[in-house]
């Protein structure tokens, strides 16, 4: 295999800087909190800017299909920054999951046409599986019947704002206009990535040629790998914010950050993050290379990064003391994102179960 590069390239650093600048401007803690409490929790204005100005929807789409032909390394950098700001945009659902599924069946012209729209930012899509699905998990049972698609799928990420639904059904992959399904937003643990239930009762659809299972597997593998970078971003924000707070907060006549027990916990957290970042970078690199080691790399990264993000967010709340328990402080947005991310695309335990046979560790 190609020698993996676990660093950030200059191009990636530039991309990161652009995304971070935009998010600092448009999606700081107060802005995100205000948005998720509003009637429209997804920030579609920000999403359009990310797509149109920064091209985050087209990074890993080949140039022949209207994309930039960059790769998942760049996509992962965007995910990291979005994790850092928990901006409520449908990046994971549309630009990663739905796009990756369609890329897998891009021999089909309907798929190609949909991809072009997604890449251009002209439409937003959702892959209609529960966000909790993992590579290899049983698929929801949507059936293609005479009168159209029938079935219900719960807890679908970013479905509430999707124009197009990418639906694995019993006879293959279908494309459904959102208006043809009943999409019900549900009260979500993660305020910044709300999920919705999607119900089909005879929905009109276009069937795409190619294997639905293969498309979904590719999407879930890609999604899980990219999610690891998001988790690194979440964890890094939590660590940075906690360190900054403990430097300025005084108790007992000293900065709280001078207390050794807290210092040691943050040192341990930093250490975890060093390992998590290396694993996430490797996963992104192997996805980008289309390497056969990608499933191993992704499950290693997911198993590790999910836990590190939760640990970081929990420490962030605890070490902020009472203020971290308040609605006004953004820490809870990260805690909820980290916890939902732990479930998303496979829990750490699921990924270890996926990993074991791949590395010859029979149960």
């Amino acid at each position: 295999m190609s020698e993996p590069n676990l660093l950030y390239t200059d191009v990636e650093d530039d991309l990161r800087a652009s995304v971070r600048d935009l998010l600092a401007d448009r999606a700081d803690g107060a802005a995100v909190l205000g948005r998720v409490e509003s009637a429209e929790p997804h920030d579609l204005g920000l999403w359009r800017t990310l797509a149109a100005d920064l091209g985050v929807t087209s990074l890993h789409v080949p140039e022949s299909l209207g994309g930039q032909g960059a790769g998942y390394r760049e996509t992962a950098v965007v995910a990291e920054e979005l994790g850092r700001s928990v901006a409520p945009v449908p990046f994971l659902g549309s630009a990663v999951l739905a796009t990756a599924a369609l890329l897998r069946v891009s021999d089909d012209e309907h798929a190609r046409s949909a991809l072009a729209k997604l890449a251009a930012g002209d439409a937003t899509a959702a892959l209609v599986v529960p966000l909790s699905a993992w590579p290899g998990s049983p698929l929801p049972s949507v059936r293609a019947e005479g009168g159209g698609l029938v079935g219900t799928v719960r807890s679908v990420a970013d479905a509430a704002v999707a124009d197009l639904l990418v639906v694995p059904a019993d006879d293959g992959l279908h494309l459904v206009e959102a208006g043809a399904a009943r999409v019900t937003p549900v009260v979500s643990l993660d305020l910044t990535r709300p999920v919705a239930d999607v119900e089909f009762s005879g929905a009109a659809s276009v069937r795409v040629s190619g294997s639905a299972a293969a498309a979904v597997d590719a999407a879930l593998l890609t999604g899980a790998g990219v999610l690891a970078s998001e988790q690194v971003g979440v964890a890094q924000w939590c660590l940075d914010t906690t360190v900054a707070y403990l430097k300025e907060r005084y108790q007992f006549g000293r900065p709280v950050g001078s207390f050794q027990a807290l210092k040691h916990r943050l040192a341990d957290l930093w250490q975890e993050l060093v390992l998590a970042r290396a694993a996430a970078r490797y996963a992104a690199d192997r996805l980008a290379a289309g390497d056969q080691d990608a499933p191993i790399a992704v499950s290693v990264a997911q198993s590790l990064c999910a836990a590190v993000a939760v640990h970081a967010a929990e420490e962030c709340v605890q070490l902020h003391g009472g203020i971290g328990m308040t609605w006004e402080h953004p820490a809870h947005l990260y805690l909820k994102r980290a916890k939902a991310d732990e479930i998303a695309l496979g829990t750490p335990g699921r990924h270890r179960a996926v990993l074991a046979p791949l590395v010859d560790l029979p149960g």
Partner: protein
Amino acid sequence: MSEELRERVAALLAAHDPATTDRLEFLRARFDAGLAWVHFPVGLGGLGAARGDQRIVDEELAKAGAPDNNPRRIGIGLGMAAPTILAFGADEQKRRFLRPLWTGEEVWCQLFSEPGAGSDLAALGTRARRDGDDWVVTGQKVWTSTAHTARWAILVARTDPDVPKHAGMTYFVCDMTDPGVEVRPLRQITGEAEFNEVFLTEVRIPDAHRLGAVGDGWRVAQTTLMNERVAIGGRPVPREGGMIGVVADAWRANPERRTPEAHDRLVKLWVESEALRLAGTRLRQQLAAGSPGPEGSAMKLAFARLAQTLSGFEVELLAEDGLRYDDWTLRRPELVDFTGREAGYRYLRAKGNSIEGGTSEILRNIIAERILGLPSEPRVDKDVPWKDLPK
């Protein structure tokens, strides 16, 4: 003693049939009969009996269908204000405050924590200035539960900023109906607002409502906090009582969500929950035997960690359902209801268990120094006037 107590209960019941007596009237009569808290002095709701004998009274009255004073609803009054008033109050204060406190006619709250003084309570900056027979109090308090329903508050304020922080505080009873008291709900990460912020602006407190000497507020507050710690984890729990029961039932109800990995984690949590329960039994047996141990601190630490781990496990176990939440509406619950709501709520609310009532970090300091006898850290704030401390 137990025979005498049973006779007194019988006499109370004979004179005030619970089936026909107004609830409040019955509670007042019970207080006056010395059956409210039997270890309190005669005339103040008690009989000077052993604390452990209360169980006999409570059982007899429960058997007879008598109303209780809804102790969880007035926990701050019962658990914190009452023992402090008993220990430091003047006779008149005891007579004035304890009866309506116990019957629940007057709800109490606690004005200790401030935004800048959490773990370091002695750093608090709410100022009380003497003005004739009154004190004039200005400052901001936080994390005050039941402030919006309370008639009275126990309050610690700074009366002398020119001496080291522990020496310049005084303890008061504050009238929550004073026009200078403003209560605002404080929304927390669960969406609800159990607590309040309380803004005090030129609140006038008569000197007659001071508890303990001027400058002795730290010592008085320690009595309050010690009683808070005693109150935690004190009740008997059946096996699988509390959060483990909810999680074990979720496991039993969801065979399709089980994995070998999750199984071992669950059993491990079951083991720890059972051990915590047994430690509680052991602690109560020590108390009953007259040799209370310091194990309560261990139980608070373990309880917080377990509640957090269990609820985190449950959310993860529920997978696509764990991604959902029951209700983000801003509500004002009277009590924490861990088992009446869903997994996500438990997960978020349990985060407070290692912060409220003393953070787990402070508790570890206390265990290390007071129980294990390890030396304290170098102190930089001991001899510095409060006003010169970095904040």
